[in-house]
């Protein structure tokens, strides 16, 4: 997934302008002529300069390349699907772990990833359960991280 330098430059330029707009209204430290906006403002100005250079470089060298070139992996269904599944697993964990608890979410994430990467189903079932339990024991029991129990709270151990 390759963006042209012109496009990246424009996005970065927009970002630096946004930052400059935000820090404009930051008040100075009382009694000083400098404030919390000075440093991020300086950085944003430098970023704007760099993005102008990047845009120029893009115009010079990549004028005829499209703004976005999909990588080879995007066109391969297997790879693109797995990419989306990995992201999906993380999003699923973020949204569902409080409710479903670590044991269910962990097993689900592992089983999905194993299946997506073509691990044999016997292994998938066995490994997803065992790895989740091992990780749970290490972090919950040994390191005392309060991994959520969610709907499994009644059988908490």
């Amino acid at each position: 997934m390759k963006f042209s330098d012109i496009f990246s430059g424009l996005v970065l330029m927009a970002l630096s302008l946004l930052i400059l707009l935000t820090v404009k209204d930051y008040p100075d430290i009382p009694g000083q002529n400098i404030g919390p906006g000075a440093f991020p403002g300086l950085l944003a100005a430098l970023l704007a300069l760099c993005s102008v250079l990047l845009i120029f470089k893009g115009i010079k060298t990549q004028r005829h390349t499209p703004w976005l070139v999909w990588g080879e992996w995007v066109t391969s269904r297997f790879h693109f699907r797995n990419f989306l599944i990995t992201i999906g697993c993380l999003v699923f964990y973020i949204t569902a772990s409080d409710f479903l608890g670590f044991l269910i979410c962990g097993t689900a994430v592992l089983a999905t990833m194993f299946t997506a990467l073509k691990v044999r189903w016997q292994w998938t079932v066995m490994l997803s359960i065992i790895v989740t339990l091992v990780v749970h024991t290490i972090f919950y029991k040994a390191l005392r991280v309060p991994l959520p129990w969610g709907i499994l709270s009644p059988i908490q151990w």
Partner: protein
Amino acid sequence: MTTAVLLQAFWLVFDPYVLLVILCSAMFGLFVGCIPGLSATMATALLVPITFFMPPVPAIAAIVTATAMAIFSGDIPGALLRIPGTPASAAYTDEAYQMTLKGQAEVALGAGLVFSAIGGLFGTLVMILFSPALAEIALKFSSFEYFWLVVLGLAGAVFIGNASVLKACITLLLGLLIACIGLENPAGMPRFTFGLKELMSGVELIPMMVGMFAVSELLRYITNMDPPHIIATEKIGNIFSGMWGLLKKYRWPLARGSALGTVIGIQPGSGADMASWLSYAMSKKFSKEPEKFGTGHVEGIVESGAANNSSLAGAWIPAIVFGIPGDSITAIAIGVLYLKNMNPGPMIFINNPENIYAIFLVFILANIIMVPLGWLTVKIATKILRVQRNILMPIILIFCIVGSFSINNSVWGVTLILFFGLAAFLLEENGFPVAPAILGVVLGTMMEENFITSMIKSDGDPLVFFTRPIAMWLAIGTIVILLWPVFTWAYQRITQTRAA
């Protein structure tokens, strides 16, 4: 006084718990380094959530040991599969593979192991000898000097060894801007928090690193379309035979590689990969038999194998003395030191000298146990290389999730690894290096603090940054690095026009 401190350091390191941590992280580092696609930086990023629960000395011991091991064991898949296990082995992967094809796998791996250990010990020795003296000088530094030191470090990170200086500059600025998020600034004003209370204390470093170095590598594996490689040989003989001969024959390349590696490590922003590329090139230049390079000749492996391990120790010198990381691994380690309230800087030599000596001891220990453990790893290497990566990767993902959760016990950490994992993946796809970003995040707060303090001290007059004697020299050094690309460009132009 010193003996008492040394004894204390001995007690800290030779504690059964610390030794166990060292042993486990050594095995972990050897394993991760041996698997292509998992780098030494990833080993560190995965270790950090666990070290979060340890006292300072074992936490640092875990990182030091795991990285030293991973850098060596990156040579193994290089020699057997022709893919470097970590970027630091890339410089001599072809050479080692050619040796394997000639039936000399054991010489290539033995040289990698023995000379890695010697290089590592050399770097450690330099660190032990020089860092206390440097710390004495650093005590005299004020905010002006620290400001320049940070800029010098960041300039090095951007201008040395990056394919595109401009893109490295951009990621560095992005990293510095991320460091601006939250309340922790001289004015104590919440900046760029988007109304999220999670961002009030800034972006947590550990989830960010796990995202940038572990999740993004995972995404790269998932989207990688290269066919699997074939193991070149099953038979590896005694890796130690003939090493004494090599040691005598190549003592100068060994010394040169170790010295160059240490210097490159000290220079902020350039780490083991650069040390190994540069010293391989130097080895070829100074060799009596340069024509043999690339055909399976051990000399380059001796020199750059030593260089990449010595650079690891070198990178720790500015990290401990000034709190300025030499590469992305020490950037992570500095983050850990801050979490442990063991803020790096010259004061640590006065307040906690036993901890510093403990770090020195861990370096020595790690480089010594590398030899037997590395030998064992080579013995079972062909088995490790057969570990199914489609089984390993989901397990790494679950570790990333739990590790980032455990920092604040909230899913916010998981959200951060998703964001930074995707961001780092996209940046690298587009040729933006991510290491400068992490240096920016680690150094951002320090840079702003020193900048604002200096500006207040000087009543807003920026000239003061150049008038103090040490500050002036640091400023000159920085400006030379900043203008270096312009010099080389101009020089090339002049020579070209003359030639024409």
